[in-house]
């Protein structure tokens, strides 16, 4: 399945990223992600810190299953993209510019809410060698905007 245009647009809109995983023995885990974008082969790549996200990374290596949650602070619009073929690889400096781009956009979102850049930096400023890339093919999308239908399926486009 392919992402719809509004989901692709959301990726670059200044969203907060939350990444979830679960080990084979049923231990859920989550961490903040730093950036995500659609790659030319239709897979999503999500960047996270190896130090911060070690548990999620281990869970993804364990099962290949991943949930990437994207939430736009200005309106709480929130979606999750799910994968079951996730692969972990070193990220490094290749993703430096992408992380910076997402960080600047996210910071602008939080500025409006009175959260200072120094606070956002506490989450974002990671050395390049700490960046890890997880690639997966989204097979399902869920609406996670708070409300009674949080968790319900969103349509994706057939590839």
């Amino acid at each position, binding site marked *: 399945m392919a992402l719809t245009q509004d989901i692709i647009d959301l990726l670059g809109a200044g969203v907060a990223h939350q990444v979830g995983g679960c080990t084979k023995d*049923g231990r*859920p885990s*989550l961490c903040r992600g730093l950036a995500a974008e659609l790659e030319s082969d239709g897979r999503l790549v999500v960047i996270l810190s190896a130090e911060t996200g*070690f548990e999620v990374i281990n869970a993804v290596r364990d099962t290949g*299953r991943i*949930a990437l949650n994207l939430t736009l602070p200005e309106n709480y619009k929130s979606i999750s993209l799910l994968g079951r073929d996730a692969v972990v690889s070193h990220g490094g400096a290749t993703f430096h510019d992408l992380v910076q781009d997402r960080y600047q956009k996210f910071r602008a979102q939080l500025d409006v809410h009175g959260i200072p850049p120094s606070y956002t930096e*506490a989450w974002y400023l990671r050395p390049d060698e700490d960046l890890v890339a997880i690639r997966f093919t989204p097979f399902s999308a*869920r609406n996670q905007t708070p409300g009674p239908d949080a968790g319900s399926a969103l349509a994706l486009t057939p590839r």
Partner: protein
Amino acid sequence: MNRRMSDDLTLFGVRRMMEGVIPPTLCTASPDRMPNVSYLSLAEYVDPLHIALSFQFFNRSRENVLATKRAALTLDDPYTGAGVILQLEYLRTETEGPVFERLRAKLMGVASHAGMDQVFHLRGADIYRVLELRRVPGRRELPAAEPRVDLATNSRLLSERLANSGELADLLDTLLDGLGELLRIDNAMLWLFDSAQEVLTLLASRGYEVGGAGAEISTGDGIVGTAVREGVPIRVGHMMNMARYARAARDRADALGFEPVLKSEIPLPGLKEPRSQLAVPLRARGRVLGALLVESKHDQHFGYDDEDALMLLCGQFAVAMSLMQPPEPEPPAREPPKAAAQPPAGAAGPAVQLRRYARDNSVFLDDVYLIRGVAGAILWKLVGEYLRSGRREFSNRELRLAPELRLPDVQDNLEVRLLLLQRRLTEQNAAIQLEKAGRGRMRLNVTRPVAMESD
């Protein structure tokens, strides 16, 4: 293999991360290990091993938790950027009791802040056992904000002042003045619980344009009512819609069938747009006597430490208040009864009309609502006695024994009701005033002739 942190964190120590500025994030998984990430409205500290999460909707998270009993939760410190992650085991869902009520009151605050108070509804408080708690590594943490005051030292100073208060009026003023001077809490109201009428009556306030002594709200609404009903503190870090209180007061008056011409509603004090509120019950001798409500124009103004400090101070205040029922003095030599004088000496000018409605002892002075309930009955009795005999001084003992006042029980604090009546008359600058006339006694001062009328 998972790395384990060796943080010496405690759930108690990370309570302030559950304040809601940055929503808690929950990860659950289906039985086939597909994760689901969602934001929560609220997380609430229960005890050193347990946490409560708001359950509002039957959604994917709910389905997963019921199936697997497992969840992971992250919390972010609203000041430093630090984060913690918790591994949780679902135990049960509570739909009543203090934890549920605390969550519900907070949710009401959050929802009204977002204009969603008619949509958000708390179905339950999900209680989880905390299996693990560790710090999120790799964050560049900021220094914690400077505390507003030295809460422990200044609370102790205020406690000492309260301990030196010998009279109820002094005790009350010491508390409310001390909140501003020592704890930098500039907006406060002290509410009394009337168990017979099931209402809360405002005894005194600080920091508002109107004092509001004698104003009433229903016990069923708002964070004050919840704090009294459940006997627990309620803290909301977001804007609270004070209109709820006004509506509660209005509803109560309507239910009692007041004639529309005579509005019995005393204007409620309160910030127009409070951003933080904390209601703390006044508990003593196994009973809840009322509640202190403090508020601020700033988000997250009151933390758990404020809650702890005010719980201690309000407990001390409540015990002192309940013990200030003075020992009954011997009946003093009464002033010799004077021949009924209309008006008694000292009262001059046009007459004021004191009207009572017997069904709830509400009393109006020149069509302006004054007070009701026991305080209203007391005023009616004192003025009646004054007009009959010219007597101006009365003992608390005779009021306590007066059958027409129907004081609810021996624990009912007559002193508090007299203080409330005294303050209400003072606020109204009424032609009838009440003042203390020694231990266990009071004096009526009437500056104009009075005509009494009852239905």
